[in-house]
């Protein structure tokens, strides 16, 4: 019979192998010995020529990290042995502002990932990180001239120490959770984005984080500051090659959305299935500010991510749209946290999950409307689609509506693909597995349509690839 759809899946498979699942052959310019200790943290800080205050923040965070137990309320993290990991690997000494200056092996890596191409076509600026360090950053001149700053976080600490000091660790303090403490102790790389008052970027900026080895930790630290009236769309891409042993990715993202500013944070992740991913992402939103989280999450062994919005000023608003696939031996623990701390604030959470082939997807949400947050509005919708009998989905919403004049709605659904739908699509010539992936993509469409086309086309292909794990069973 006709093979076109097999060809499509083959293409997606190749896309995944060639584009994502490869190792960059670089001899690190510098790396610390494996394991975590005070001396490792001090060594890193010294190597980075950091000011004393940053070293002190790190050392304090390390103590907090050591004092906190590994979380046991979610996925099984027992495999994670913090002594096995290497916490700092610097692939290259230089940081380039021009792709031609990036060493060939590293440039090839990002070429494969399509980063320079995307930058040329679509982006106002781009930061690229391999392992622990930014290797490239560039912002179009027109935005530089307006005072926008976009660079890797280590460079920002050297060049704008005062701004960094003022904002670092306030939105996400190291005491927030064990991974946040770890990140604060050993953070490296990440991106720094500063948008001056009233400046509105019409194209997105992107930061791309690439992991490379097994038993490697990536702990980037991102700080986004949108001054009053500013607006920006920040895109984060994350990938890693496949290994039999795990690696740990634990980022911190702190976003300041000031008065009437707007930030959209789109995260497109296609992790290989050996990654344990536990980032902490949070934003403070002031009066009339708006924060939008959009996340599409494929792969990883374990993901625990709950982007948070703290609505601190009147009429501040936020949305959190999340798509997660847990197909295979995967635990996706996703959610959203929203705190309404001012009157007339509004929030909307939409979470869609797919579980299949024994996968587990969890929605873990927290929503609080504080007393005095008059007339605030919140809605939470979480829909789960379960593809077979061995896969699971759980929902743990935690809602505290402490203000009487506030309105709140919560909808949740758990469903299966209906065989009548599959029959209908098949009766129009579409193979069973393709029918199932079309239904899945339709289910996710609410959220996927919010991901820029440049990314969602590929995301769709990768969803189809996940679905092809099902083969054409009857």
């Amino acid at each position: 019979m006709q093979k076109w759809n097999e060809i499509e899946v083959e293409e997606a498979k190749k896309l995944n192998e060639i584009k994502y699942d490869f190792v960059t052959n670089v001899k690190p310019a510098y790396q610390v010995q494996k394991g975590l200790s005070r001396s490792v943290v001090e060594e890193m800080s010294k190597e980075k020529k950091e000011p004393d205050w940053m070293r002190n923040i790190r050392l304090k965070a390390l103590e907090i990290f050591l004092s906190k137990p590994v979380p046991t309320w979610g996925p099984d993290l027992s495999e994670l042995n913090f002594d096995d990991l290497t916490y700092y690997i610097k692939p290259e000494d230089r940081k380039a502002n021009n792709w031609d200056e990036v060493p060939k092996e590293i440039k090839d890596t990002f070429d494969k990932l399509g980063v320079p191409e995307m930058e040329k076509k679509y982006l106002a600026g781009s930061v690229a990180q391999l392992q622990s360090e930014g290797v490239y950053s560039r912002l179009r001149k027109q935005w530089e001239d307006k005072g926008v700053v976009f660079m890797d976080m280590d460079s920002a600490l050297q060049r704008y120490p005062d701004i960094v000091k003022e904002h670092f660790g306030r939105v996400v303090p190291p005491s927030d959770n064990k991974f946040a403490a770890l990140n604060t102790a050993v953070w490296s790389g990440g991106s720094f984005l500063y948008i001056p008052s009233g400046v509105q970027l019409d194209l997105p900026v992107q930061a791309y984080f690439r992991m490379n080895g097994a038993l490697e930790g990536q702990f980037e630290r991102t700080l986004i500051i949108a001054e009053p009236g500013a607006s920006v769309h920040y895109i984060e891409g994350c990938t890693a090659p496949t290994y039999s042993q795990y690696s740990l990715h634990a980022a911190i993202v702190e976003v300041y959305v000031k008065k009437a500013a707007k930030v959209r944070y789109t995260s497109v992740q296609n992790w290989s299935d050996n990654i344990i991913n536990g980032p902490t992402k949070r934003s403070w939103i002031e009066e009339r500010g708006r924060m939008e989280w959009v996340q599409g999450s494929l792969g990883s062994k374990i993901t625990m991510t709950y982007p948070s919005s703290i609505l601190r000023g009147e009429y501040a608003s936020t949305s959190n749209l999340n798509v997660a696939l847990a197909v295979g031996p995967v635990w996706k623990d996703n959610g959203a946290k929203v705190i309404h701390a001012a009157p007339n604030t509004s929030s909307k959470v939409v979470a869609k999950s797919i579980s299949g082939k024994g996968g587990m997807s969890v929605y873990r949400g927290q929503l609080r409307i504080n007393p005095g947050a008059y007339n605030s509005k919140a809605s939470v919708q979480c829909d789960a689609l379960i593809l077979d009998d061995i896969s699971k989905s759980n929902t743990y919403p935690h809602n505290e509506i402490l203000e009487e004049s506030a309105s709140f709605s919560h909808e949740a659904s758990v469903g299966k693909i209906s065989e009548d739908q599959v029959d209908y699509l098949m009766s129009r010539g579409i193979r069973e597995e393709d029918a199932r992936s079309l239904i899945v993509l339709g289910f996710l469409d609410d959220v996927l349509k919010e991901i820029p086309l440049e990314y969602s086309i590929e995301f769709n292909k990768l969803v189809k690839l996940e679905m092809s794990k099902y083969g054409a069973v009857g």
Partner: protein
Amino acid sequence: MVANVLSIKDLHVSVGDKEILKGVTITVKSGEIHALMGPNGTGKSTLAHTVVGSLRYKVKSGELLINDINLKDLQVYERARAGLFVAFQEPVSVQGLRFINYLRTAYSSLHPDEKLEYKKFIEEVKELLNYFGLDNSFIDRGLNEGLSGGEKKRMEALQMLILKPKFIILDEIDSGLDIDALRVVSKAIAKAKENGAGIIIITHYQRILDYIKPDFVHVLINGRIAESGNGELAKLIEERGYEYYRGGEVDAKVE
């Protein structure tokens, strides 16, 4: 043009433990229009679903062929690729699956050797939407999502034209259509016939048959064809009702 033949021969079909079709024979050739009529619950939709290949409908005996291709050996999607199209009495909806994405996937599945030019394809779909009195917004709507009964039927008819099948079964495509829509859908069926498709129209009403004259009419009673005839038979049925076939006369009328 090569004449194709859809043969349904002495088909026995059960759903669960219940035998619904008890030996149905209908032969459709390219360019022919057959009407299949009969009271509620006699198995007309069952026949459509069985030909499609839904697993719930178990063929106990009999044959299903397009030319010499045995449909019984084929999965649902393979039957469609062999040239079959069934417009369902109640088309299901798929939330969020944009009509155009679905249709494009269906088209390239059915015609793998053609290189589909997306722009042209969209234009063609828009033209047809217009023809059926539907606006362009239907292109991006979720498949049958929130469509009215009549809109769904028109969208099925549209797909019948776009996907270029060899054999078409229309299960009550006329129910729920307003007068204008009925006229357009009838014209569309005539077009499909001109393109060489063999067609079975399942209907309760003479009305649609005034627009498209059937070459054959079959009456299905209790899972059996009680009578077959030419276009005149539909009018007779309208006059005398199905009571006529009750009580012993059924067997006498079987050819």
